[in-house]
């Protein structure tokens, strides 16, 4: 895809450039790529049990490894069944994942595997093995790639954000790539994102804006997993920036309205052209003047994109792999939902809580440790 769109760059509150940019991204594009190593791991094909094996060798100076395998389409789901470390020890098993320091998504089309996800299990140099599992009835062949971050993290990194407006000027009057830099609610939102990320040791970095050059009518409302994945695939940039598609509405496969959706966790930062290459956020709260909630959605979804999980899932079925985030174990009324009021002080006050509320603002040192090792911040 080689689409054209106006792109505006904001840094430190000043427009530095406004240009007609070719948004086809591509490896070696103009983005900040220092500190990353990309490696083609080749392809693998499933056996009769739906499994496939890959391995990768983590460089000595790598602080994180993001392995991606795909594409395999939206009708197939995949996950990591087991992961072994350079010593041959099993550090992840899908059947007992809650007892490990890793969590794996069960996801369509492209599987991202991130190590580490917790300070309790750091990445070590050497050869890791991953046993993949695919739900397809027939054989599946996927290509796998590794993205190693070899840049030491610091506690003062920035995250670049690339906004892509998908025909939202009807939802938020006048909001487009040209006007965004002066849009007061959007700037309030960005300030809010910065405040929420401060505890993670992150700040909002360079902010760029573009108008979506594809089928605006189709993607103004992102409906279901396939549209979500296809929209993210239009982001072909491999810059170290998170692409946020700002849309009028997001609905799931049953038509229910949701607030946001990030690829992952984790997503595929600095990897273009995949169904995991970004996040989608509704502008509904921006339209309502609720910039606090809009900021919370962006900060939360990018948190997922960088590898953070909910401290406790809504149904209590899982927790993040971090030691210093509270786990809610109090379903006081026994109805199977870990409601925010039941989990006060047990995670509901954290940014990565499953529901958006004004109280959900906290972050932890371990969450900061994880995101600072993502390929995204620099």
């Amino acid at each position, binding site marked *: 895809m080689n689409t054209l769109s106006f792109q505006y760059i904001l840094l430190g509150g000043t427009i530095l450039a406004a240009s007609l940019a070719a948004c086809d991204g591509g490896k070696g594009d103009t983005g900040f790529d220092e500190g990353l190593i990309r490696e083609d791991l080749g392809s693998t094909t499933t056996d009769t049990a739906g499994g496939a094996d890959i391995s990768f060798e983590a460089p000595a100076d790598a602080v994180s490894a993001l392995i991606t395998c795909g594409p395999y389409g939206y009708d197939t789901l995949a996950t990591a069944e087991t992961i072994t470390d350079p010593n041959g020890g099993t550090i992840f098993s899908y059947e007992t994942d809650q007892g490990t320091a890793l969590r794996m998504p069960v996801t369509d089309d492209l599987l991202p595997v991130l190590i580490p996800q917790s300070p309790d299990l750091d990445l070590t140099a050497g050869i890791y093995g991953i046993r993949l*599992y695919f739900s*397809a009835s027939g054989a599946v062949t996927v290509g796998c790639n590794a993205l190693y971050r070899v840049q030491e993290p610091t506690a003062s990194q920035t995250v670049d954000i690339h906004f892509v407006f998908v025909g939202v000027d009807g939802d938020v009057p006048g909001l487009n790539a040209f006007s965004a830099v002066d849009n007061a609610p959007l700037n309030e939102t960005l300030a809010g994102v910065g405040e929420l990320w401060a505890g993670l040791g992150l700040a909002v970095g360079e902010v760029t804006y573009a108008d979506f050059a594809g089928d605006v*009518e189709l993607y103004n409302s992102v409906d279901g997993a396939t549209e979500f994945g296809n929209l993210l695939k239009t982001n072909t940039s491999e810059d170290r920036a998170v692409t946020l598609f700002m849309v009028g509405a997001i609905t799931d496969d*049953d038509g229910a*309205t949701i607030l946001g959706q990030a690829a992952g966790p984790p997503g595929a930062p600095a990897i273009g052209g995949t169904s995991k290459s970004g996040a989608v956020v509704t502008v509904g709260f921006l339209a309502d003047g609720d910039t606090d909630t809009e900021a919370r959605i962006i900060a939360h979804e990018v948190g997922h994109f960088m590898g953070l999980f909910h401290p406790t899932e809504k149904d209590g079925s899982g927790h993040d792999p971090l030691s210093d985030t509270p786990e809610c174990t109090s379903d006081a009324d026994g109805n199977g*939902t870990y409601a925010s009021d039941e989990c006060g002080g047990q995670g509901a006050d954290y940014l990565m809580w499953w529901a958006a509320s004004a109280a959900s603002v906290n972050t932890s040192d371990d969450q900061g440790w994880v995101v600072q090792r993502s390929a995204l911040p620099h």
Partner: protein
Amino acid sequence: MLIASTLTLWLAAAQPAFAAEVTLRDRVLDLVSGYEDAPTRDELFKLGDGVDLALIDIANDASVGRTRRSSAVWALGFFPTDTTHTYVLGVVQDAQADSLLRRSATWALCTGWGDAALSEVAPSLKSDDAQLRNQAVRAVAKVGTPAALVTLQQRLPLESSAMVRDTLNASIQAIGAPATGEIK
């Protein structure tokens, strides 16, 4: 609005069995505030009686924000009563209502009343709003019955939007097709 004022009185009088400071409405609002997940039928039913009225109360509350209100309207499809039917049908028929709410009301009608709602979602299928028409097609497709198929087939030659035509064609093809792919 009669429904809204009646609800306010009812909700004030009927304190649910939660801690004193947490109301049923709070619990329902929590569920429609999930970032990535909408409330499920099971989650809402387990909150006990009065959830449908709490959903309508939230849907009517402009201070809540239209995204959450939209989710509340959508969830009314899990509670097919005369009261909820009157409410969602009213939203569908109100051409001045917010598009997001009308889309969700269209879904609620199809979810809650199935074939019986097919004629009632006609305003959505004929709307000037292509996004609303698109959601109506998806919702009718979800009904998945022969009558739903006929509704979609009748709409196809009249549809002017390429997006909606694509959804129509895909929906017509999909009705009856088995789902595939489950993780072990």
